[in-house]
């Protein structure tokens, strides 16, 4: 039987969450996830694209700045422009920002530390193909692991993404309060993840693929992938 959703997980030199993403996706029935090497130039036939976490090109120059010019990124742009779902996790989010597929950028964590820990996210908006099965205000327990996750955008850009409801998740405390203490990296407005104006491109610093199996200590990441599957199913119906 043909899969409901065929996903390309892009592998850059230095990606290290690619097989985790593939395994998380493959745990959903009807999903086929394939690793696609960054030298490829076409993503025809895929319903969704995942840019996984890691340290593409050793994070040389700036995180994501070299990966952004990989051959596959032309196809990622074409896919994004044609409405295909594009999910960037951690380094993938940084690459999407460098590529201009998402506004703003991710700077060095304010405390200069690499933060690897579990924390909470509040779902800000469910009107997206990545959050539709979640509910507004829901608190997700999802880990982060990054040194450059401090989201920044100039005031006009920030006002725009706020007005367009592009902020999908913010760092919060266990009760869902968005506080400075719950912000691990000094991101503007506790922003943990944003989507594009067209809503089909989503980048977030936390790692949903790491909490998709109870054996790993949680399943709060599943809702994001489940939302993608529902969106693709709906689009094909």
């Amino acid at each position, binding site marked *: 039987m043909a899969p409901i959703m065929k996903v390309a997980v892009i592998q850059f030199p230095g990606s290290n969450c690619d097989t985790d993403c593939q395994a998380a996706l493959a745990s959903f029935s009807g999903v086929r996830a394939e690793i696609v090497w960054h030298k490829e130039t076409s993503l025809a036939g895929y319903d969704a694209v995942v840019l996984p976490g890691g340290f593409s090109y050793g994070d040389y*120059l700036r995180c994501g*700045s070299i990966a952004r010019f990989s051959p596959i990124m032309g196809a990622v742009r074409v896919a994004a422009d044609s409405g295909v779902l594009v999910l960037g996790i951690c380094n993938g989010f940084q690459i999407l*920002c460098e590529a201009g597929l998402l506004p703003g950028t991710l*700077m060095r964590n304010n405390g200069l530390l690499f933060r690897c820990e579990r924390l909470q996210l509040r779902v800000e908006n469910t009107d997206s193909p990545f959050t539709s099965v979640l509910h507004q205000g829901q608190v997700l327990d999802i880990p982060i692991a990054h040194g450059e996750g401090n989201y*920044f*955008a*100039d005031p006009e850009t920030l006002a725009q993404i706020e007005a367009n409801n592009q902020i999908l998740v913010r760092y919060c405390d266990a009760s869902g309060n968005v506080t400075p203490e719950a912000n691990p990296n000094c991101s503007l407005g506790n922003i943990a993840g944003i989507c594009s104006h067209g809503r089909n491109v989503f980048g977030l610093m936390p790692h949903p693929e790491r909490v998709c199996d109870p054996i790993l200590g949680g399943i709060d990441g599943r809702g994001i992938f489940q939302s993608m599957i529902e969106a693709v199913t709906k689009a094909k119906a």
Partner: protein
Amino acid sequence: MKAVVTVMPKPAILDPAGVATGQAMEHLGLKGVRSVRIGKSIEIEVDGADEKQLHEICHDLLSNPVVEDYKLEILS
């Protein structure tokens, strides 16, 4: 052609690494540290490039215009 590109965080951007380094300077006895900002210097030797192309490279690859400014100096 030889060129040097200097990339610096924009003035409005907080540079926490610069702040931490400034504090270390004070620990070493340097008085009155007002500001320390850390950027990058990139030396380029290239045959047959024109300045316009180099500016494009500076804008698209070597700096992130959201948070950084660059200065391109052609040395020879």
